[in-house]
């Protein structure tokens, strides 16, 4: 990791504008919660209470900054298994996350059926996703198409990793979105690794440069700076709403821990490389920035304690929830009549 890499530099000397400082403080609190939840997930994984742990550690600034630029519950946001901080910023609770980690009946994403952090909340327009890499990218293109057909100004957003950009799904999704100038923002969180395979073995060219081939801007942004990501995504969303078409954003982030709790990254990452990643950790960096902008240490300390307490309380609440009933294992293979949709039972809505 070269010292010139984005995120490695010192906190900016220029004073923050008041509105930016206010935003950064709020985002810092969400990032703290995401980090605290992430750390606790690994604990319950080690305890055997969770079968699988998927992490967002190191991606928090990019995710929170990007999600803050979206309209929660209006824009359709297609996430992937590292998107926990996106979900928290858009209104998902830490308890919801732990209900999915522990596969409990009340897990709002999947009722315990999917691996942890497969975010799905209809009210927030967070559509269900699979565990397959990149398959949701064409779904975002379809959502952008739906906005055009319905004449509504929602934007479709897909979050994915650098590994997904090698998939055909990425290519076909960006091809169609580019041809039709659909209102889609494609956000690649590039942490330099597809599990163990480094970027230079995943992509022959810098990822953001691929935008040109699909007739859309490709934007490179420091993914460890939430404000930079916020501005890039806000500009891309505005462009999409204005009918000017999609944007590909590459946010350079770091992966601070292993791919999952089933992975041993010491096999393929050197101590130097890990130290370089930790030097770019977006949380201490944002903390320094807030201190430089005059945020009191006591306030920061209280937020940090609060995040840990919230994560622990969320875990305790989730642990009290029941397991899903075995008798329901085959339920919802096919949609049931929507008795809960006011005035629109499925048969009638289709007739």
């Amino acid at each position: 990791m070269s010292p010139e890499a984005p995120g490695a530099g010192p906190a900016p000397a220029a004073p923050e504008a008041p509105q930016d400082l206010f935003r950064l403080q709020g985002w810092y609190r969400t990032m703290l919660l995401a980090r605290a939840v992430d750390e606790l997930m690994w604990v319950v994984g080690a305890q055997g209470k969770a079968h699988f742990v998927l992490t967002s550690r190191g991606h928090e600034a990019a995710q929170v900054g990007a999600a803050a630029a979206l309209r929660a519950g209006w824009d359709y946001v297609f996430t992937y298994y590292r998107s926990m901080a996106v979900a928290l910023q858009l209104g998902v609770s830490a308890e919801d996350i732990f209900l999915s980690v522990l596969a409990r009946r009340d897990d709002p994403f999947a009722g315990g059926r999917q691996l942890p952090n497969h975010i799905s909340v209809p009210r927030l327009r967070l559509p269900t996703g699979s565990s397959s890499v990149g398959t949701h990218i064409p779904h975002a293109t379809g959502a952008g198409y739906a906005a055009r057909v319905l004449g509504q100004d929602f934007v479709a957003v897909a979050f994915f990793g650098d590994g997904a950009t090698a998939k055909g799904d990425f290519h076909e999704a960006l091809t169609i979105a580019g041809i039709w100038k659909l209102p889609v923002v494609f956000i690649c969180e590039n942490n330099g690794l597809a599990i163990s395979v480094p970027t230079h073995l995943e992509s022959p060219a810098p990822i953001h440069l691929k935008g040109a081939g699909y007739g859309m801007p490709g934007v490179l942004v420091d993914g460890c700076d939430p404000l930079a990501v916020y501005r890039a995504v806000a500009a891309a969303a505005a462009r999409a709403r204005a009918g000017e078409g999609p944007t590909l954003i590459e946010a350079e982030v770091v992966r601070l821990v292993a791919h999952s709790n089933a992975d041993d990254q010491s096999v393929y990452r050197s101590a130097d490389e890990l130290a370089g990643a930790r030097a770019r950790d977006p949380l201490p960096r944002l903390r320094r920035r807030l201190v430089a902008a005059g945020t009191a240490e006591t306030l920061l300390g209280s937020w940090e304690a609060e995040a840990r307490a919230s994560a622990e309380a969320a875990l305790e609440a989730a642990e009290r929830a029941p397991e899903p009933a075995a008798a329901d294992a085959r339920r919802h293979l096919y949609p049931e009549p929507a008795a809960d949709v006011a005035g629109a039972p499925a048969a009638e809505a289709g007739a």
Partner: protein
Amino acid sequence: MTALTLIEAINLALREELARDERVVLLGQDIGRKGGVFGVTRGLQADFGPLRVMDTPIAEVGIAGMAIGAALCGLRPVAEFQFADYLHPAFDQIVNEAATISYRSNGAWRCPAVFRAPCGAGVHGGLYHSQSVEAYYAHVPGLKVVVPATPEDARGLLKSAVRDDAPVVFLEHKGSYRRERQEVSAAETLVPLGEARLDRAGRDATVLTYGIGVHWARAAAAAVAGEGIDVEILDLRTVHPLDREAIARSVARTSRAVVVHEANRTLGVGAELAAFLADELFESLDAPVRRVAARDCHVPYAASQEGAIVPGAAEVAAALRDVAAY
């Protein structure tokens, strides 16, 4: 009343659904200006515009994935794949994504998309324009798989598929496209998914089939009628879910069954039908269940070889004589 081919009946169904519901959209390669390689979508782009009847690139993953994303946002997309052989690139999207959306979200999301494709041999299309793919999809919970045999059914089944909240794979046999003209009613008729249709009543043996197999069975039934074999034909129409009640009702009465499809024999839909009859109607059967199916091979281009692989009415008649004489 108008007499329509199966192609025209599907065109009519799509036109009626596009006109009825603004959420219905069509996606696919060559479906717009060209009207589809078989003319199924002819005239629809002119009437409903290039956005709702969209010519896409040759990008089957993108077409299927886009249909799924649009369906998640409330549209009712009908994606056309030029041949069933080219559904394979989209298999991941249909099987891992569309089929699992209701289940994996515990019922919170739905994927009301239709994946249409012409299937089957008999047009000298060679390995990549002749395949029968229904068994792959019938194996997957969460999907419905429909194979119409007649123009009126094609219209009514497709309209039901468009309105169904589950993802539907809709396979149209090319050999049935222009095979017959049938009067379809002026009023719209929906044919429910999952209900078999009694195509011909008979006493001595039941042919269980769908799609092109119905036409082979009709010819075979006519051929053996003079030999005193009175054949019943049950057109399953929907391969998944199967109308197991109708199947059991018919075979319990005739006591003999021949299962017919153009797809390969091994692990085809017929294997499930035969196993079902063995499980549920063992004591009613007066003869072993016979299967008429392709000879576990790819479909070759040369007519002499294609005919050696793909069955037809003669094979169905032979199987009927076999079970009748048992």
